[in-house]
Protein backbone atom coordinates (compact mmCIF):
# COMPACT_ATOMS: atom_id res chain seq x y z
CA UNK A 1 0.00 0.00 0.00
CA UNK A 2 1.72 3.17 -1.16
CA UNK A 3 1.39 6.40 0.68
CA UNK A 4 0.67 8.75 -2.18
CA UNK A 5 1.26 12.46 -1.81
CA UNK A 6 -0.99 14.23 -4.26
CA UNK A 7 0.89 17.13 -5.78
CA UNK A 8 -1.73 19.83 -6.22
CA UNK A 9 -0.67 22.63 -8.55
CA UNK A 10 0.03 25.84 -6.61
CA UNK A 11 -2.98 28.14 -6.36
CA UNK A 12 -0.89 31.26 -6.78
CA UNK A 13 0.34 33.62 -4.06
CA UNK A 14 3.33 32.84 -1.85
CA UNK A 15 4.49 29.37 -0.91
CA UNK A 16 6.29 28.94 2.42
CA UNK A 17 7.57 25.38 2.10
CA UNK A 18 11.26 26.25 2.09
CA UNK A 19 11.11 28.38 5.26
CA UNK A 20 11.97 25.62 7.76
CA UNK A 21 14.85 24.44 5.63
CA UNK A 22 16.22 27.97 5.28
CA UNK A 23 16.07 28.43 9.06
CA UNK A 24 18.02 25.20 9.51
CA UNK A 25 20.61 26.35 6.97
CA UNK A 26 20.98 29.72 8.67
CA UNK A 27 21.76 27.93 11.94
CA UNK A 28 24.44 25.92 10.12
CA UNK A 29 26.02 29.13 8.85
CA UNK A 30 24.67 29.33 5.28
CA UNK A 31 23.17 32.78 5.15
CA UNK A 32 20.51 33.74 2.63
CA UNK A 33 21.81 35.92 -0.20
CA UNK A 34 21.08 39.64 0.02
CA UNK A 35 18.21 41.04 -2.00
CA UNK A 36 18.48 43.70 -4.63
CA UNK A 37 17.15 47.01 -3.33
CA UNK A 38 16.35 50.06 -5.35
CA UNK A 39 17.66 52.62 -2.73
CA UNK A 40 16.07 55.30 -4.72
CA UNK A 41 14.78 58.77 -5.26
CA UNK A 42 11.21 58.76 -6.61
CA UNK A 43 9.03 61.86 -6.86
CA UNK A 44 5.67 62.95 -8.16
CA UNK A 45 3.92 66.26 -8.54
CA UNK A 46 0.61 67.57 -9.80
CA UNK A 47 0.79 70.36 -12.35
CA UNK A 48 -2.02 72.23 -14.08
CA UNK A 49 -2.84 69.55 -16.69
CA UNK A 50 -1.99 66.34 -14.84
CA UNK A 51 0.75 64.47 -13.01
CA UNK A 52 4.52 64.23 -13.50
CA UNK A 53 6.41 61.26 -12.02
CA UNK A 54 10.19 61.07 -11.83
CA UNK A 55 12.73 58.46 -10.73
CA UNK A 56 16.47 57.79 -10.78
CA UNK A 57 17.82 54.59 -12.38
CA UNK A 58 20.23 52.93 -9.97
CA UNK A 59 19.69 49.44 -8.48
CA UNK A 60 22.01 48.37 -5.66
CA UNK A 61 22.97 45.02 -4.15
CA UNK A 62 24.53 45.97 -0.85
CA UNK A 63 27.22 48.55 -1.66
CA UNK A 64 27.55 47.51 -5.30
CA UNK A 65 25.58 49.05 -8.15
CA UNK A 66 24.16 46.08 -10.02
CA UNK A 67 22.11 47.95 -12.60
CA UNK A 68 23.08 51.40 -13.80
CA UNK A 69 19.95 51.92 -15.86
CA UNK A 70 16.95 50.13 -14.41
CA UNK A 71 13.33 51.20 -14.90
CA UNK A 72 11.58 52.30 -11.74
CA UNK A 73 8.47 53.83 -13.30
CA UNK A 74 6.10 50.91 -13.80
CA UNK A 75 3.03 50.78 -16.01
CA UNK A 76 -0.27 50.16 -14.20
CA UNK A 77 -2.88 51.33 -16.70
CA UNK A 78 -2.76 53.57 -19.80
CA UNK A 79 -3.51 56.53 -17.53
CA UNK A 80 -1.80 55.40 -14.31
CA UNK A 81 1.90 54.89 -13.60
CA UNK A 82 3.66 53.90 -10.39
CA UNK A 83 7.23 54.48 -9.17
CA UNK A 84 8.62 51.90 -6.75
CA UNK A 85 11.29 51.98 -4.04
CA UNK A 86 12.39 49.24 -1.65
CA UNK A 87 13.14 45.63 -2.53
CA UNK A 88 13.23 45.44 -6.35
CA UNK A 89 11.45 42.07 -6.64
CA UNK A 90 8.61 43.27 -4.40
CA UNK A 91 7.96 46.52 -6.28
CA UNK A 92 8.02 44.72 -9.65
CA UNK A 93 5.81 41.87 -8.52
CA UNK A 94 3.27 44.08 -6.72
CA UNK A 95 2.94 46.54 -9.60
CA UNK A 96 2.64 43.74 -12.20
CA UNK A 97 0.00 42.00 -10.13
CA UNK A 98 -2.11 45.12 -9.58
CA UNK A 99 -1.69 46.07 -13.25
CA UNK A 100 -3.21 42.72 -14.30
CA UNK A 101 -6.01 43.11 -11.76
CA UNK A 102 -6.76 46.59 -13.14
CA UNK A 103 -6.87 45.18 -16.67
CA UNK A 104 -9.38 42.54 -15.60
CA UNK A 105 -11.40 45.22 -13.83
CA UNK A 106 -11.39 47.30 -17.01
CA UNK A 107 -12.73 44.36 -18.99
CA UNK A 108 -15.35 43.79 -16.32
CA UNK A 109 -16.61 47.35 -16.06
CA UNK A 110 -15.81 48.64 -19.56
CA UNK A 111 -14.47 51.89 -18.13
CA UNK A 112 -11.09 53.58 -17.73
CA UNK A 113 -9.36 52.66 -14.44
CA UNK A 114 -9.38 55.15 -11.60
CA UNK A 115 -6.33 55.93 -9.52
CA UNK A 116 -8.15 55.19 -6.25
CA UNK A 117 -8.87 51.65 -7.52
CA UNK A 118 -5.15 51.02 -7.97
CA UNK A 119 -4.49 52.65 -4.61
CA UNK A 120 -6.93 50.40 -2.76
CA UNK A 121 -5.69 47.22 -4.46
CA UNK A 122 -2.08 48.08 -3.56
CA UNK A 123 -2.72 49.09 0.05
CA UNK A 124 -4.85 46.02 0.75
CA UNK A 125 -2.12 43.72 -0.56
CA UNK A 126 0.66 45.47 1.35
CA UNK A 127 -1.27 45.63 4.63
CA UNK A 128 -2.09 41.95 4.27
CA UNK A 129 1.62 41.14 4.48
CA UNK A 130 2.19 43.56 7.37
CA UNK A 131 5.13 45.35 5.74
CA UNK A 132 7.12 42.22 4.87
CA UNK A 133 6.50 42.95 1.18
CA UNK A 134 8.85 45.89 1.26
CA UNK A 135 7.50 48.18 -1.46
CA UNK A 136 7.20 51.96 -1.04
CA UNK A 137 5.32 53.42 -3.99
CA UNK A 138 4.40 56.76 -5.53
CA UNK A 139 1.24 56.28 -7.57
CA UNK A 140 0.05 58.92 -10.00
CA UNK A 141 -2.49 59.17 -12.78
CA UNK A 142 -5.28 61.11 -14.43
CA UNK A 143 -8.80 59.70 -14.59
CA UNK A 144 -12.31 61.08 -15.06
CA UNK A 145 -12.23 62.69 -11.63
CA UNK A 146 -9.00 64.57 -12.36
CA UNK A 147 -5.28 64.18 -11.61
CA UNK A 148 -4.30 62.24 -8.46
CA UNK A 149 -1.03 61.58 -6.66
CA UNK A 150 -0.64 59.14 -3.74
CA UNK A 151 2.18 57.65 -1.70
CA UNK A 152 1.93 54.12 -0.31
CA UNK A 153 4.16 52.89 2.51
CA UNK A 154 5.22 49.24 2.94
CA UNK A 155 2.86 48.71 5.87
CA UNK A 156 -0.14 49.84 3.86
CA UNK A 157 -0.72 53.44 4.89
CA UNK A 158 -1.36 55.99 2.15
CA UNK A 159 -1.23 59.75 1.70
CA UNK A 160 -2.80 61.95 -0.94
CA UNK A 161 -0.58 64.88 -1.76
CA UNK A 162 0.07 67.57 -4.39
CA UNK A 163 3.79 66.65 -4.41
CA UNK A 164 5.50 63.62 -2.92
CA UNK A 165 8.90 61.97 -2.62
CA UNK A 166 9.93 58.47 -1.44
CA UNK A 167 13.06 56.40 -1.14
CA UNK A 168 16.46 57.00 0.42
CA UNK A 169 16.87 60.26 -1.53
CA UNK A 170 13.44 61.55 -0.50
CA UNK A 171 14.79 64.17 1.89
CA UNK A 172 17.06 65.69 -0.75
CA UNK A 173 14.22 65.78 -3.29
CA UNK A 174 11.66 67.11 -0.79
CA UNK A 175 13.96 70.01 0.02
CA UNK A 176 13.85 71.05 -3.65
CA UNK A 177 10.08 70.65 -3.83
CA UNK A 178 9.36 72.54 -0.64
CA UNK A 179 11.32 75.56 -1.82
CA UNK A 180 10.14 75.70 -5.44
CA UNK A 181 6.69 74.12 -5.68
CA UNK A 182 3.62 76.22 -6.36
CA UNK A 183 0.11 75.50 -7.63
CA UNK A 184 -0.61 75.66 -11.36
CA UNK A 185 2.83 74.85 -12.80
CA UNK A 186 3.08 74.49 -16.57
CA UNK A 187 4.37 71.31 -18.17
CA UNK A 188 7.88 72.60 -18.78
CA UNK A 189 8.21 74.15 -15.34
CA UNK A 190 6.96 70.91 -13.81
CA UNK A 191 9.46 68.79 -15.74
CA UNK A 192 12.27 71.16 -14.79
CA UNK A 193 11.32 70.98 -11.10
CA UNK A 194 11.06 67.19 -11.09
CA UNK A 195 14.43 66.90 -12.86
CA UNK A 196 16.01 69.23 -10.29
CA UNK A 197 14.56 67.19 -7.43
CA UNK A 198 15.79 63.87 -8.83
CA UNK A 199 19.21 65.35 -9.59
CA UNK A 200 19.51 66.55 -6.00
CA UNK A 201 18.73 62.98 -4.92
CA UNK A 202 21.23 61.54 -7.41
CA UNK A 203 24.10 63.78 -6.34
CA UNK A 204 23.47 63.87 -2.60
CA UNK A 205 22.23 60.36 -1.84
CA UNK A 206 24.53 57.37 -2.22
CA UNK A 207 21.70 54.97 -2.95
CA UNK A 208 20.48 56.91 -6.00
CA UNK A 209 22.34 57.62 -9.18
CA UNK A 210 22.76 57.43 -12.94
CA UNK A 211 20.00 58.91 -15.07
CA UNK A 212 16.63 60.61 -14.66
CA UNK A 213 13.40 59.05 -15.96
CA UNK A 214 10.28 61.19 -16.29
CA UNK A 215 6.67 60.28 -17.01
CA UNK A 216 4.10 62.99 -17.81
CA UNK A 217 0.45 61.91 -17.57
CA UNK A 218 -2.33 64.17 -18.78
CA UNK A 219 -5.96 63.73 -19.76
CA UNK A 220 -4.89 63.43 -23.40
CA UNK A 221 -2.30 60.73 -22.86
CA UNK A 222 1.04 59.94 -21.37
CA UNK A 223 4.63 60.65 -22.30
CA UNK A 224 7.36 58.42 -20.95
CA UNK A 225 10.73 60.20 -21.21
CA UNK A 226 13.15 57.37 -20.52
CA UNK A 227 16.61 58.74 -19.66
CA UNK A 228 15.40 62.31 -19.98
CA UNK A 229 18.64 63.51 -18.46
CA UNK A 230 21.94 61.65 -18.28
CA UNK A 231 24.12 63.61 -15.87
CA UNK A 232 26.48 60.67 -15.25
CA UNK A 233 27.97 59.53 -18.53
CA UNK A 234 30.91 57.14 -18.38
CA UNK A 235 34.10 59.17 -18.49
CA UNK A 236 37.51 57.91 -19.64
CA UNK A 237 36.45 55.07 -21.95
CA UNK A 238 39.52 53.67 -23.61
CA UNK A 239 38.97 53.73 -27.36
CA UNK A 240 41.44 50.93 -28.00
CA UNK A 241 39.75 48.49 -25.65
CA UNK A 242 41.55 45.41 -24.39
CA UNK A 243 43.50 43.05 -26.57
CA UNK A 244 44.73 39.71 -25.32
CA UNK A 245 47.91 38.69 -27.11
CA UNK A 246 48.37 35.61 -24.90
CA UNK A 247 45.31 33.51 -25.70
CA UNK A 248 43.32 31.53 -23.11
CA UNK A 249 44.37 27.91 -22.84
CA UNK A 250 41.53 25.83 -24.27
CA UNK A 251 41.31 22.28 -22.93
CA UNK A 252 38.36 21.05 -24.95
CA UNK A 253 36.28 22.50 -27.79
CA UNK A 254 32.94 21.07 -28.79
CA UNK A 255 31.00 22.65 -31.66
CA UNK A 256 27.37 21.60 -32.01
CA UNK A 257 25.60 22.89 -35.12
CA UNK A 258 22.01 23.81 -34.35
CA UNK A 259 19.34 21.68 -35.99
CA UNK A 260 18.01 23.03 -39.26
CA UNK A 261 14.37 24.07 -39.06
CA UNK A 262 12.00 21.66 -40.79
CA UNK A 263 10.90 22.96 -44.20
CA UNK A 264 7.13 22.91 -44.73
CA UNK A 265 6.32 22.17 -48.34
CA UNK A 266 3.03 23.69 -49.41
CA UNK A 267 0.66 21.48 -51.33
CA UNK A 268 2.12 18.17 -50.26
CA UNK A 269 0.54 14.84 -50.97
CA UNK A 270 -3.15 14.90 -50.34
CA UNK A 271 -4.26 12.11 -48.01
CA UNK A 272 -6.25 9.44 -49.68
CA UNK A 273 -9.75 9.05 -48.34
Amino acid at each position, binding site marked *: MSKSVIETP*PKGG*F*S*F*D*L*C*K*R*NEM*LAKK*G*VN*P*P*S*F*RKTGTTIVGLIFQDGVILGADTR*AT*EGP*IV*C*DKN*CEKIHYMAPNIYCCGAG*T*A*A*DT*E*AVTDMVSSQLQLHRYHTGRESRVVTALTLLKRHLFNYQG*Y*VSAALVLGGVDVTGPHLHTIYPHGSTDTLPFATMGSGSLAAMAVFESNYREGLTRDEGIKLVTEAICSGIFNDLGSGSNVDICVITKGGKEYLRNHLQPNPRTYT*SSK*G*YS*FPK*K*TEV*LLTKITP*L*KEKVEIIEGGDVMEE
Partner: protein
Amino acid sequence: MVGKNCFAIASDRRLGVQLQTIATDFKRIYKVHDRLFLGLSGLATDAQTLYQRLVFRHKLYQLREERDMKPETFANLVSAILYEKRFGPYFCQPVIAGLGDEDKPFICTMDSIGAKELAKDFVVAGTASESLYGACESMFKEGMEPEELFETVSQALLSSVDRDCLSGWGGHVYVV
Protein backbone atom coordinates in the same frame (compact mmCIF):
# COMPACT_ATOMS: atom_id res chain seq x y z
CA MET B 1 27.95 38.80 -22.26
CA VAL B 2 26.43 40.02 -25.50
CA GLY B 3 28.24 40.13 -28.84
CA LYS B 4 27.18 40.70 -32.43
CA ASN B 5 24.21 38.35 -33.02
CA CYS B 6 25.71 35.99 -30.44
CA PHE B 7 26.13 35.65 -26.70
CA ALA B 8 28.53 33.88 -24.36
CA ILE B 9 27.76 32.43 -20.94
CA ALA B 10 30.53 31.19 -18.67
CA SER B 11 30.95 29.73 -15.21
CA ASP B 12 33.75 28.44 -13.04
CA ARG B 13 34.06 24.73 -12.23
CA ARG B 14 34.52 24.50 -8.48
CA LEU B 15 31.97 22.96 -6.17
CA GLY B 16 32.76 23.47 -2.50
CA VAL B 17 31.36 23.40 1.02
CA GLN B 18 32.67 26.64 2.53
CA LEU B 19 36.43 26.15 2.25
CA GLN B 20 36.56 22.49 1.28
CA THR B 21 36.49 21.62 -2.46
CA ILE B 22 34.19 18.74 -3.33
CA ALA B 23 34.45 18.76 -7.13
CA THR B 24 36.56 20.52 -9.74
CA ASP B 25 34.39 19.93 -12.81
CA PHE B 26 30.95 20.96 -11.68
CA LYS B 27 28.61 22.03 -14.46
CA ARG B 28 26.61 25.12 -13.56
CA ILE B 29 25.30 26.08 -16.98
CA TYR B 30 22.33 24.13 -18.25
CA LYS B 31 20.79 24.06 -21.71
CA VAL B 32 17.06 24.72 -21.77
CA HIS B 33 16.80 24.52 -25.54
CA ASP B 34 19.23 25.05 -28.42
CA ARG B 35 19.16 28.81 -28.18
CA LEU B 36 18.58 29.35 -24.45
CA PHE B 37 21.04 28.68 -21.65
CA LEU B 38 20.62 29.06 -17.91
CA GLY B 39 23.44 29.42 -15.39
CA LEU B 40 22.66 28.95 -11.70
CA SER B 41 25.04 30.13 -8.97
CA GLY B 42 24.63 29.62 -5.25
CA LEU B 43 23.56 26.54 -3.31
CA ALA B 44 24.06 23.52 -5.58
CA THR B 45 21.02 21.62 -4.35
CA ASP B 46 18.71 24.60 -4.99
CA ALA B 47 20.31 25.09 -8.41
CA GLN B 48 19.57 21.49 -9.40
CA THR B 49 16.00 21.59 -8.03
CA LEU B 50 15.30 24.88 -9.76
CA TYR B 51 16.73 23.59 -13.03
CA GLN B 52 14.55 20.45 -12.88
CA ARG B 53 11.43 22.53 -12.17
CA LEU B 54 12.19 24.89 -15.05
CA VAL B 55 12.88 22.08 -17.52
CA PHE B 56 9.56 20.52 -16.50
CA ARG B 57 7.69 23.78 -17.14
CA HIS B 58 9.50 24.31 -20.42
CA LYS B 59 8.63 20.81 -21.64
CA LEU B 60 4.96 21.42 -20.82
CA TYR B 61 5.17 24.70 -22.72
CA GLN B 62 6.72 22.92 -25.72
CA LEU B 63 3.91 20.38 -25.73
CA ARG B 64 1.22 23.04 -25.53
CA GLU B 65 2.67 25.63 -27.89
CA GLU B 66 4.63 23.32 -30.22
CA ARG B 67 7.64 25.62 -30.16
CA ASP B 68 10.49 26.66 -27.90
CA MET B 69 10.10 29.37 -25.28
CA LYS B 70 11.42 32.82 -26.09
CA PRO B 71 14.16 34.05 -23.72
CA GLU B 72 12.03 36.96 -22.46
CA THR B 73 9.17 34.60 -21.62
CA PHE B 74 11.56 32.20 -19.90
CA ALA B 75 12.99 35.05 -17.82
CA ASN B 76 9.46 35.93 -16.68
CA LEU B 77 8.83 32.29 -15.78
CA VAL B 78 12.00 32.07 -13.68
CA SER B 79 11.16 35.37 -11.97
CA ALA B 80 7.67 34.14 -11.07
CA ILE B 81 8.94 30.81 -9.74
CA LEU B 82 11.54 32.56 -7.58
CA TYR B 83 9.11 35.22 -6.29
CA GLU B 84 6.65 32.51 -5.26
CA LYS B 85 9.21 31.60 -2.60
CA ARG B 86 9.67 35.22 -1.51
CA PHE B 87 9.62 34.46 2.22
CA GLY B 88 11.66 31.26 2.05
CA PRO B 89 13.75 31.73 -1.06
CA TYR B 90 15.89 29.40 -3.13
CA PHE B 91 19.52 30.23 -2.40
CA CYS B 92 20.55 30.76 -5.99
CA GLN B 93 20.94 33.53 -8.54
CA PRO B 94 20.20 32.65 -12.15
CA VAL B 95 21.82 34.07 -15.26
CA ILE B 96 19.73 33.60 -18.39
CA ALA B 97 21.12 34.01 -21.89
CA GLY B 98 19.34 33.29 -25.16
CA LEU B 99 18.86 34.26 -28.77
CA GLY B 100 15.46 35.75 -29.47
CA ASP B 101 13.80 36.58 -32.77
CA GLU B 102 16.16 37.40 -35.62
CA ASP B 103 19.12 36.17 -33.56
CA LYS B 104 18.96 39.11 -31.21
CA PRO B 105 20.85 38.13 -28.03
CA PHE B 106 19.03 38.49 -24.71
CA ILE B 107 20.69 38.35 -21.31
CA CYS B 108 19.29 38.78 -17.86
CA THR B 109 20.14 38.03 -14.25
CA MET B 110 18.02 37.93 -11.11
CA ASP B 111 18.57 38.04 -7.40
CA SER B 112 17.34 35.11 -5.34
CA ILE B 113 13.74 36.39 -5.18
CA GLY B 114 13.29 37.09 -8.86
CA ALA B 115 14.07 40.78 -9.39
CA LYS B 116 14.98 40.84 -13.07
CA GLU B 117 17.90 42.87 -14.27
CA LEU B 118 18.03 43.19 -18.04
CA ALA B 119 21.21 44.54 -19.54
CA LYS B 120 22.44 45.30 -22.99
CA ASP B 121 26.08 44.40 -22.36
CA PHE B 122 26.81 41.91 -19.59
CA VAL B 123 25.37 40.40 -16.43
CA VAL B 124 27.15 38.68 -13.54
CA ALA B 125 26.21 36.58 -10.53
CA GLY B 126 27.94 34.57 -7.81
CA THR B 127 30.51 34.94 -5.05
CA ALA B 128 32.99 36.73 -7.30
CA SER B 129 30.34 39.08 -8.72
CA GLU B 130 32.00 42.22 -7.39
CA SER B 131 35.27 41.49 -9.23
CA LEU B 132 33.31 40.36 -12.27
CA TYR B 133 31.52 43.71 -12.46
CA GLY B 134 34.88 45.44 -12.60
CA ALA B 135 36.49 43.06 -15.08
CA CYS B 136 33.53 43.02 -17.47
CA GLU B 137 33.04 46.79 -17.28
CA SER B 138 36.58 47.38 -18.52
CA MET B 139 36.91 44.52 -20.99
CA PHE B 140 33.53 44.79 -22.71
CA LYS B 141 33.31 46.21 -26.24
CA GLU B 142 30.24 46.67 -28.41
CA GLY B 143 29.61 44.26 -31.29
CA MET B 144 32.25 41.60 -30.69
CA GLU B 145 32.47 38.61 -33.02
CA PRO B 146 32.26 35.11 -31.44
CA GLU B 147 36.03 34.47 -31.28
CA GLU B 148 36.77 37.83 -29.68
CA LEU B 149 33.76 37.44 -27.37
CA PHE B 150 35.04 34.06 -26.20
CA GLU B 151 38.46 35.54 -25.44
CA THR B 152 36.97 38.49 -23.53
CA VAL B 153 34.58 36.37 -21.49
CA SER B 154 37.27 33.84 -20.55
CA GLN B 155 39.76 36.53 -19.55
CA ALA B 156 37.16 38.36 -17.45
CA LEU B 157 36.05 35.13 -15.76
CA LEU B 158 39.55 33.83 -15.07
CA SER B 159 40.88 37.11 -13.73
CA SER B 160 37.88 37.51 -11.40
CA VAL B 161 37.83 33.96 -10.05
CA ASP B 162 41.56 34.22 -9.39
CA ARG B 163 40.69 36.87 -6.82
CA ASP B 164 38.01 34.79 -5.12
CA CYS B 165 38.77 31.85 -2.86
CA LEU B 166 35.40 30.21 -3.33
CA SER B 167 35.62 30.00 -7.15
CA GLY B 168 38.23 28.52 -9.41
CA TRP B 169 39.49 25.46 -11.26
CA GLY B 170 39.02 26.91 -14.73
CA GLY B 171 35.79 27.62 -16.54
CA HIS B 172 33.13 26.37 -18.93
CA VAL B 173 32.23 28.84 -21.71
CA TYR B 174 29.29 28.46 -24.09
CA VAL B 175 29.20 30.75 -27.15
CA VAL B 176 25.98 30.68 -29.13
